[in-house]
């Protein structure tokens, strides 16, 4: 064979590349959303709200599963066997460690290898996959899901669902839905110290200020308030709950754009007056030695230690922290210590709380749409995640085996079953041994169901929080692809600047007299253009799809 000359080699390569390109799969015809005639195998003919879903033939659905280290996946869980009995569906989990769930999810979707059902997707995370065209606009198929539709109507979730809509007016995530906003984070206080100082539990941020001053006077050498949750956003929880009292956003809840109800337009969060006032409040606390400056940088462990060793008396908390992290260690060292999660204090905005009723949910891949069992799958999802019976099943388990229900509807664990210490005599953990109360399957639902596993003290907290008026959710402003690219470029640098300056203003490293200079700096980072972009997107959405 003659030696391969350079030219022939180049020609061969070009030919090979060309072949490879044409060999690529061309996009298969996108199925007409309304034509489901070929996808009804195994589906029930007419599924009603509250009806048990049972497939007409045994079905198997692949699902992505986030494995929590506390309750590793067991194929023989009662959850799976009972689910199969009731619905005729066997789930095929692709197990992914929870620590890197999002990475693997992105990889599998990108490689086209994702299972049909992708749970544990938080609102906003689905946006990244919309442009790739690999996930289904589930809003087109809401008619297949009577339980979800019923809940959206009953609980008036329209505005909440609207926040999920993309530019085409459709939404791509089936969110977890709650009947009411579920507040969990607040402040934990040493009530025995309060009693010593003859103080009442503070109900407003100003009262908290007074309480802290009294605590400092009695214990001058320590900071009465030393906070945690500094990672990934400094003051994540504290700023989040404080911001609601100032009609703005902060901490974990920070978004660059906030809806200004008065002006009926979007404003830049980090530049709002409410944001400034919030920072001024915290700065006062720091300047008077009431709030530990390290709150915004120290690890959770360091903050917890200060609290349980009695160096500080106030710390951020959720329901679990008090029971797990604070009380045992605290009372071991000091049996007279008592700690309580107080209702979130009120501020200038009044007796209000913000929050969303949506939480993590499911994505469905386009490949699932082409399956002949697609309709059955959507009905199955509707039953398990959105029907009252399905939600109760996923959370509590099998009546008679894991729990019993009395005439009033109150549920109790059976003798041997326990979860979060509600039945101390039980030896089998509901999650570990049976697979119920699983983060992948059990979330959302009626307030009654949600609170059925709360401790007595948590119920007190929930009752007091329920008296607060719920703030309305912000309207949506979905970007087009080009706008999203532009926005992403600006968003990060704006947020970083706000974060850095938030810390500086609170800690007193930057004086509030420099606030106008700070605003100018934001303007150089395209703050005005960003807000204009947001408002334009919002107006376009209102024009195309209605709403406020």
């Amino acid at each position, binding site marked *: 064979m003659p030696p391969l000359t350079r030219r022939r080699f180049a020609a061969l390569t070009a030919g090979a590349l060309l072949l490879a390109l044409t060999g690529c799969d061309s996009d298969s015809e996108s199925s007409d959303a309304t034509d489901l005639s070929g996808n009804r195998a195994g589906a029930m003919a007419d599924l009603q709200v509250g009806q048990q879903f049972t497939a007409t033939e045994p079905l198997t659905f692949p699902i992505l599963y986030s494995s929590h280290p506390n309750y590793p996946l067991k194929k023989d869980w009662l959850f799976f066997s009972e689910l199969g009995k009731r619905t005729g569906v066997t789930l095929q989990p692709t197990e992914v*460690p*929870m620590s890197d769930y999002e990475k693997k999810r992105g990889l599998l979707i990108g490689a086209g290898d994702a299972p049909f059902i992708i749970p544990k997707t938080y609102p906003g995370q689905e946006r990244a996959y919309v442009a790739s065209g690999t996930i289904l606009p589930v809003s087109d198929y809401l008619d297949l899901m009577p339980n979800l539709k019923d809940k959206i109507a009953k609980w008036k979730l329209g505005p909440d669902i609207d926040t999920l809509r993309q530019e085409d007016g459709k939404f791509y995530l089936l969110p977890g839905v709650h009947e009411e906003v579920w507040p*969990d984070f607040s402040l934990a206080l040493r009530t025995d110290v309060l009693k010593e100082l003859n103080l009442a539990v503070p109900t407003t941020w100003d009262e908290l200020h007074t309480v802290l001053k009294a605590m400092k006077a009695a214990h001058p050498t320590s900071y009465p308030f030393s906070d945690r949750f500094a990672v990934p956003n400094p003051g994540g929880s504290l700023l989040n709950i404080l911001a609601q009292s100032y009609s703005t956003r902060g901490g*974990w809840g920070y978004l660059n754009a906030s809806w200004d109800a008065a002006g009926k337009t979007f404003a830049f969060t980090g530049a709002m007056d409410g944001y400034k006032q919030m920072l001024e409040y915290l700065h006062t606390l720091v300047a008077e030695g009431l709030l530990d400056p390290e709150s915004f940088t120290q690890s959770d*462990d360091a903050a917890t*230690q200060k609290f349980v060793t009695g160096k500080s008396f106030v710390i951020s908390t959720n329901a*679990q922290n008090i029971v797990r992290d604070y009380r045992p260690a605290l009372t071991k060292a000091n049996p007279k210590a008592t700690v309580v999660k107080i209702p979130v204090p009120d501020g200038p905005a009044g007796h209000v709380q913000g929050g969303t009723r949506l939480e993590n949910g499911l994505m469905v891949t386009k490949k699932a749409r082409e399956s002949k069992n697609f309709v059955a799958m959507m009905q199955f999802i509707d039953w398990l995640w959105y029907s009252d019976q399905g939600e109760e099943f996923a959370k509590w388990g099998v009546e008679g085996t894991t729990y019993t229900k009395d005439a009033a509807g109150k549920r109790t664990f059976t003798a041997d079953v326990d979860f979060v210490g509600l039945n101390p005599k039980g030896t089998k953990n509901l999650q570990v041994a049976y697979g119920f109360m699983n983060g992948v*399957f059990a979330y959302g639902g009626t307030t009654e169901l949600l609170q059925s596993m709360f401790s007595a003290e948590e119920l007190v907290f929930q009752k007091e929080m329920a008296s607060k008026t719920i703030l309305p959710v912000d309207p949506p402003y979905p970007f087009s692809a080009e706008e999203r690219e532009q926005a992403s470029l600006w968003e990060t640098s704006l947020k970083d600047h706000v974060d850095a300056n938030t810390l500086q203003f609170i800690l007193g490293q930057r004086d509030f007299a420099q606030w106008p200079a700070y605003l100018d700096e934001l303007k150089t980072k395209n703050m005005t253009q960003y807000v204009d972009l947001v408002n334009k997107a919002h107006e376009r959405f209102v024009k195309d799809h209605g709403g406020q």
Partner: protein
Amino acid sequence: MVTRVARTRGERIFQAVNAVLLTGVVLVTLYPFVTILARSLSSEAEIYAGRVNLIPRGLNLTTYKLVMSDSMFWTNYRNTVLYTVAATLISMVLTTCYAYVLSKKDLRGRGILVGLALFTMFFTGGLIPNYVLVTSLGLKNSIWAIVLPNAINVFNLLVMKAFFESLPVELEEAAAIDGLGTYGILWRIVLPLSKAVLATMVLFYAVTFWNSWFAAFLYMDRGELFPVTVYLRNLIAGATTASSTGSALGDVGQVAASIQAVTIVLTVLPILVIYPFIQRYFVSGVMLGAVKG
């Protein structure tokens, strides 16, 4: 009688300062290990109170018993051992063969072969194309997905190649005259002389594979196929993110600090034990590839 050269004052001061500095470095490096060890032997309440530093408090072995009674931990541990042994073996065979071939200066196309290896050191296919490739070859959920794609580490390859090049050609020529074939020369002459570099490479590969979690995380779909490093990573990094972003009740539930500490100790233990015996090959092994004076 042995003559000793007296050290100058300058040398003695240098030695003293050196000793102090290096002892400091050693202590700083050892501190986290000792703390983790102490935590693994302490009770959880003491850890949360922050009283556990270098000495365990509330000394107990219950956490060890707890972790060791988890069958998944042992399954994953067995996987780690299996993957490490198999991967090291395959890597050593492949790397040695490739390096030996490349060390022959009169090989035609040697430049291309070296270039191929070097190319992969600077460029990779990317995460998704790699995944698609491995999956389409049907290697998903099998040990081959972990062992094959990362079999040859180019740095190790080049070190071995340089070492083989440093062996005198006359040795191999003499062996050839005596009637040994290529494989005979490799097996009987070259490898026995390369014990140091082979031991070093075994150690490099073994430690790398023992610590690796990413390949298993990418290509395994079932918990019983994970190595213990994935198990450990989930323990440490998994639940902590959930509790700080207000996730659903079923997600929250941090893994006890004591359990994390115990798992770390058990995972690191074999490497810690083997290292002192092989580390004497280390320095000489790495330097073997350097230019000979």
